[in-house]
């Protein structure tokens, strides 16, 4: 299957799951449609080399998916399906928005020219903003629409300056690096552009937040990781430095907030901080930092489907296992991910290492608080057998990742970039 075919498959799944199933009063089955679209990714053959949105003069509108991109699409799609299966309530439009976002993410990951990459990010951001504003009109979702929309616009603008950016820091190269950094930070909710993310997480349901956490943000991170080495020094250095500094600042801020947060918003704070750590790992420019980012993304894909929803009766043990996987204590997956990111930070500078350790400590406190002081009143009816089976599968997957992080990460993303 070609990348374009995969994108169309996801869009078709969205129409089927979001528009047809509610009319048939079968909206709870949307997860099966999403799972089918995710597994369709296995039919796509990965390209031998993944150019990404390379900064080159060789313009072309073809889409090329490398092994890391396909791995993210399949793993993220399965996580999205599990999220929809576990969701306590579905309106029906969640799966439409989620599938359209994944469809745009296929283009984000497959783009070979920067303008198509920027356009696809803007499209995914627009779909998410529209869904969030429709689901919960308010200042938080409007702010998300403004910041993510502007971030997408900035990436489209940056794309014009990227191809001929040079090694020396002239006006054009500085503009390319600055705009790329601003656009990526807006999409990843890094400080000072990240105020929208915790507010949106409070306002919308877990099923609505999941496409950003599981597909859009990881897609932007993965493609930024491919774009960085292809950029000339004049544009690469500002982008890498911004990712490192703002990523660490966001991780520290997010971790402190997570440690203090109420149970209802604790997980969203943790995932925002972890995504910021992934950005910082990319910014270090070291292989360990990039590898740690991939492990952290996988850890969040495993734990997210359970924790992105509020607590429900009968799911306490599964949620406890998922929180355990995010503590950062060995041999949990979060430990390996954060350890490798810290290794990358140590190679960059001592200050970066110190900031990374503060962030990791805050995230540990947040997870330990979630385990020892749940305080999250389980509401609603206990789930059925099928949902319980899915939650056990999610919980066990999140724990087992910690016992074979190298094999599983390589199995999903292929040989490390």
């Amino acid at each position, binding site marked *: 299957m070609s990348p374009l075919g995969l994108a169309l498959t996801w869009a078709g799944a969205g129409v089927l799951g979001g528009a047809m199933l509610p009319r048939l009063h079968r909206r709870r089955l949307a997860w099966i449609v999403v799972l089918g679209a995710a597994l369709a990714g296995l039919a796509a053959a990965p390209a031998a080399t993944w150019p990404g949105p390379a900064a080159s003069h060789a*313009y072309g*509108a073809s889409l090329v998916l490398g092994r890391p991109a396909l791995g993210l699409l399949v793993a993220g799609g399965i996580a999205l399906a599990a999220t929809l299966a576990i969701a306590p309530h579905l309106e029906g439009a969640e799966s439409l928005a989620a599938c359209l976002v994944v469809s745009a993410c296929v283009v984000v990951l497959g783009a070979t*020219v920067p*303008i*198509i990459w*920027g*356009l696809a990010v*803007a*499209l995914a951001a*627009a779909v998410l*903003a*529209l869904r969030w*504003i*429709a689901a919960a*009109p*308010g*200042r938080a*979702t*409007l702010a998300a*629409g*403004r910041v993510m*929309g*502007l971030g997408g*616009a*900035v990436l*489209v*603008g940056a*794309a*014009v*300056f990227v*191809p*001929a950016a040079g090694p020396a820091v002239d*006006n*054009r190269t500085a*503009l390319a690096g600055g705009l790329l950094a601003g656009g990526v930070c807006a999409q990843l909710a890094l400080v000072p552009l990240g105020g929208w993310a915790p507010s949106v997480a409070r306002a919308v349901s877990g099923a609505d937040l999941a496409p950003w956490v599981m597909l859009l943000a990881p897609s932007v991170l993965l493609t930024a990781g491919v774009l960085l080495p292809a950029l000339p020094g004049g544009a690469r250095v500002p982008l890498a430095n911004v990712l490192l500094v703002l990523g660490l600042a966001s991780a520290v801020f997010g971790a402190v907030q997570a440690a203090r947060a109420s149970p209802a918003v604790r997980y969203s704070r943790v995932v925002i901080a972890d995504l910021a750590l992934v950005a910082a790992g990319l910014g270090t420019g070291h292989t360990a930092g990039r590898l740690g980012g991939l492990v952290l993304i996988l850890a969040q894909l495993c734990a997210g489907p359970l924790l992105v929803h509020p607590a429900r009766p009968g799911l306490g043990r599964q949620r406890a296992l998922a929180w355990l996987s995010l503590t950062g204590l060995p041999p949990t997956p979060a430990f390996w991910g954060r350890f490798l990111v810290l290794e990358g930070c140590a190679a960059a500078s001592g200050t970066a290492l110190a900031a990374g350790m503060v962030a990791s400590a805050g995230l540990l406190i947040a997870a330990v608080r979630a385990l020892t002081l749940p305080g999250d009143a389980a509401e609603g009816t206990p789930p059925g057998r099928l949902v319980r089976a899915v939650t056990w599968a999610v919980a066990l997957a999140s724990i087992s990742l910690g016992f074979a992080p190298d094999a599983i990460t390589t199995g999903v993303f292929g040989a490390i970039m």
Partner: protein
Amino acid sequence: MSQTLIAAIGFLGGMVVAVVDGPRAIAVASLAAGLGLAGAAASTGGVGAALLPLVGGTAAVLAAALARRSGERLRGVAGLSPEVPVVAARAALFGPRSVRVVAAALALPAASWVSLNVSVGGAASDQGAIFAAAYVWLAGAARLLRARALEDLGVGAAAVALAGATAWILEAGTGSFAEASAVAAFAAVSAAAAGWLTGRHRRPSAPVEESG
């Protein structure tokens, strides 16, 4: 065509993007941006390139009208209106349009700086064309930044898409129509989404039977 004239036309297009409001704002803004950028695109690729923003703007007008009619005919729940502000505006001395006009005025020196100091593609001497694309992009970005309703987000997205497509032609030349067309099509997608929501919201409700 004179570069000064191209810049002036682009400025007018950008001003319309910044100030237009109302039920057909996205269509009007797309058409104005397309007309304002046609000269800039023509300076690099001739008539063929000029057609790209023009067709992009016209397609947005048609897409908005068609989607609006479809929204009026489809059955379903009446949803969000793109014209209604998502949150109530705070009392302030200057209204949202005044703020956008100020932003459009500030965009003038910014776009001038870009056109004078940043070379784009082979059009290093076409400063008017670069100014036009930069100004419309900045007007769209200001619209996104100060958005109060979905309509503002749609206007901003359409303007940024058409400006981005034109700038890509300036950068990559006439061999880049495929990518530029994909970017320009985002204006039509944005207009269609807003038109569909408007039509769905304005659909006449079913008559209520009076009892007694």
